[in-house]
């Protein structure tokens, strides 16, 4: 490995209204290395990438390429300065040929020299070992090949720094290997590659160095071979291992006596691999794993939020069919979605309207909830959940994150579910509200409601759940309960193998 520094970012700062997204982060990329950028949600890695590619302007710090300070004004500007990015979603045109995608937008002259492009494209494709023909329509190639074509374009534009942002998330194993071969090839040619991913095994397979970010701050830069997987997880989640061993005094909450409420076998959806799962009445369990491990996808499959592709589901012992959210709702399942802004609130509608939404859907179009009824419901839940709002008619968008979350909780509680799925209910909300929500979960369980609780904060899950299902790379890799329910064990299971 050459040690020559290619890119240096020093004390990068980026501020958004109310948040310091990057706080004095340093990042160094050397020539001919694959450098993994790791961090959980909100750690700041995508902000850092966006600063580097000119999507965001930094508020402080400096960037230098090969020793010269540069400022990056736009993605176009970044490309011209040798920094190319290949995004998770392919930013090429599927209706054009491979050759055209490689040359369009950067060639002079009025005429398109198809033959010339095709010849040059074929040369580059052969040189990089990409299994595509220049005359193919890009949309007919597999996603992996499309991604590689994007990389080929970047390489032909003489990029020195290549950023791969979650390139493997929609590829299968074989395609991932093809991509890795290409990455190693480019590395040998002296390109510096920044590899952003949440697949731990891939990081260890291909990267030379790892930089970990957490809460907008640099945790550290490590040589991949010197950092065991379990330590990497600990650094990402934010607890040193030694401290962790002392924690973990969860009370035993076994539910062997109560009946099984929900049972799925071999359930799969377009986004989730087949899995088995069951939950008893009044039980609180959790799905844990790093971002992208498939934890959200699994619960979405339970709720029918993604297209269910297989498996069977029993509720209270009776087989039911749940293929879309309304089926799940009719069977007494509620689901608080991970992305509050996109899948949860309707910002322009009032608190009252947001609260009655799910109940209204279940009642159907022809049984409207009267205004006075709706007002009574809204007032009741504003009081019960202590929602801080000017009035029940205030648009939800103007409430704080925690209170928005409570409104959505109220929406589901109003349907009196038997089984409530909460996906990241505590993300981005203040500590006080977090505790309130955790207490509420436990109270619901006492009343006989089953709850599945997902959170990136392991500690929070340990406090509320009596059983944890651990996922890694889209598969369930373990189930922890009783004495195993402690942070060390969770991290070991997430990381896989021995610590």
């Amino acid at each position, binding site marked *: 490995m050459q040690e020559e520094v290619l890119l240096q970012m020093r004390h990068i700062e980026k501020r958004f209204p109310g948040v310091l997204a990057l706080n004095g982060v340093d990042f160094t990329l050397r020539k001919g290395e694959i450098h993994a950028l790791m961090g959980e949600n909100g750690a700041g890695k995508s902000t850092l990438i966006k600063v580097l590619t000119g999507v965001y302007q930094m508020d402080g710090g400096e960037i230098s390429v090969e020793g010269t300070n540069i400022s990056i004004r736009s993605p176009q500007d970044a490309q011209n300065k040798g920094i190319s990015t290949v995004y998770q979603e392919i*930013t090429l*045109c*599927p*209706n*054009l040929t491979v050759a055209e995608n490689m040359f369009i*937008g950067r060639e002079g002259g009025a005429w*398109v020299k198809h033959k010339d492009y095709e010849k040059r494209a074929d040369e580059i494709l052969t040189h990089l070992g990409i299994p595509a*023909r220049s005359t193919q*329509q890009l949309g007919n190639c597999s996603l992996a090949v499309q991604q590689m074509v994007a990389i080929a374009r970047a390489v032909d534009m003489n990029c020195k720094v290549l950023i791969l942002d979650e390139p493997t998330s929609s590829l299968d194993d074989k395609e991932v290997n093809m991509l890795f071969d290409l990455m190693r090839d480019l590395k040998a040619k002296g390109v510096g590659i920044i590899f952003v991913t949440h697949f731990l095994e891939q990081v260890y397979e291909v990267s030379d160095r790892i930089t970990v970010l957490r809460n907008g701050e640099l945790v550290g830069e490590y040589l991949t071979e010197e950092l065991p997987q379990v330590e990497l997880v600990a650094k990402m989640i934010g607890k040193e291992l030694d401290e962790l061993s002392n924690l973990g005094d969860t009370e035993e909450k076994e539910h062997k006596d109560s009946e099984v409420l929900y049972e799925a076998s071999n359930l799969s959806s377009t986004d989730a691999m087949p899995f088995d799962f069951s939950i008893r009445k009044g039980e609180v369990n959790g799905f844990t794993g790093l971002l992208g491990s498939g934890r959200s996808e699994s619960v979405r499959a339970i709720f029918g939020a993604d297209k269910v592709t297989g498996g069977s589901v029993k509720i209270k012992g009776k087989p039911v069919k749940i293929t879309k959210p309304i089926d799940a709702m009719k069977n007494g399942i509620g689901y608080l979605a991970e992305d509050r802004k996109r899948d949860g609130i309707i910002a322009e509608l009032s608190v009252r309207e947001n609260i009655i939404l799910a109940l209204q859907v279940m009642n159907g179009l022809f049984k409207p909830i009267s205004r006075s009824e709706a007002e009574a419901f809204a007032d009741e839940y504003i009081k019960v959940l202590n929602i801080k709002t000017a009035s029940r008619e205030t648009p939800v968008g103007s409430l704080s994150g925690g209170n928005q979350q409570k409104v959505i909780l109220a929406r589901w509680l109003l349907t009196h579910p038997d089984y409530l799925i909460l996906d990241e209910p505590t993300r981005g909300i203040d500590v006080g509200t977090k505790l309130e929500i955790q207490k509420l979960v436990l109270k619901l369980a006492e009343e006989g409601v089953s709850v599945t609780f997902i959170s990136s904060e392991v500690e929070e899950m340990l406090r509320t759940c009596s059983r944890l299902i651990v996922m890694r790379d889209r598969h369930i890799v373990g189930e922890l309960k009783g004495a195993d329910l402690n942070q060390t064990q969770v991290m070991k299971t997430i990381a896989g193998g021995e610590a």
Partner: protein
Amino acid sequence: MKMNNAKNREPLTDTQLLMSITIVIFVVMYLIAMIFLGGGFLHAQQIFDMLNDNASLIIVSCGLTIVMIGGGIDISVGAVTSLVVMSCVLYLNNGGNILVSIFLAVGIGLAFGLVQGFLISYLEIQPFIVTLAGMFFARGMTTILSVNPQKADHEGFAKLRDAKIEINALGYTAKNGNLVPARMELGVVVALACVVLIFILLKYLRLGRNFYAMGGNQQSALMLGINVKRTRFLSYILSGLLSGISGYVFMLHTGAGNATNAAGMEMNAIASSIIGGTLLTGGVGNVAGTFFGTLTLTTIKKIVVSSGLNDPWWQSITTGGMLCFFILLQSVVLSKRSKKKKQ
């Protein structure tokens, strides 16, 4: 050796595939008409009549195809055609000059393209709304110019209007023994020239490929370094320009201006483009397809009339049916394709 064979037979692009379907259907339909209906369909003049009657429709359809490939829509084209016809007729009747009248036609079309293109591309207003406004505006202007139909009585123009290209070889012998040559109007030459030029533009010019890129994925086009705003602006300018030319060709065919000229032409143009394999979602399409799309649409209308269904609504009903059929066919073909890719 097998590898080599595979290399030579590249699967068709979506554009080529949809266009081929249209051409095949057109040919089959025409052959069926020749066999079962005979009569006019057996003479070459039938094709020439179809071209003579639809030269201006072919021209605006080309413009619309460009806009639709870029992911937009332009519904002002029929009204602009009508406005051009009325303006030019009035100008010629007041002692105008032929050459200036051509400039007038092109100028009006360009003006609409410029204004609409600017509003859509740089002020980012919905193309449907902008061109709807343009349509009403042009229709209104036409009526202001003259409520009554105006016949062009300019001498030089009359010569131009009556000029026909006669092809003896494709003619037929009438009952009295005289040879009736196949006749083609000047407008058809203009229309064919437009089709060829736009075909070259779309296939071999950078601008043309940028239209496809923009329609395929606007965000990607931007990331690939294409000036999307300017490209979109130019697509509407071309559409406006072609509407102007279409107006002049329309006048050459009818020789008169009328406020109801070219009524519904924009819808026929959209139908022609779609039947020819242009997708409303953008990025796929071709003017050669559009040309055959127009012919297909016209042929089916002729078949309906020849079958004795003379009432005008039958034509509308079959047009609607055709459009549904083609859209269904396209979506089935394309979804089969993407499924095959996934496996």
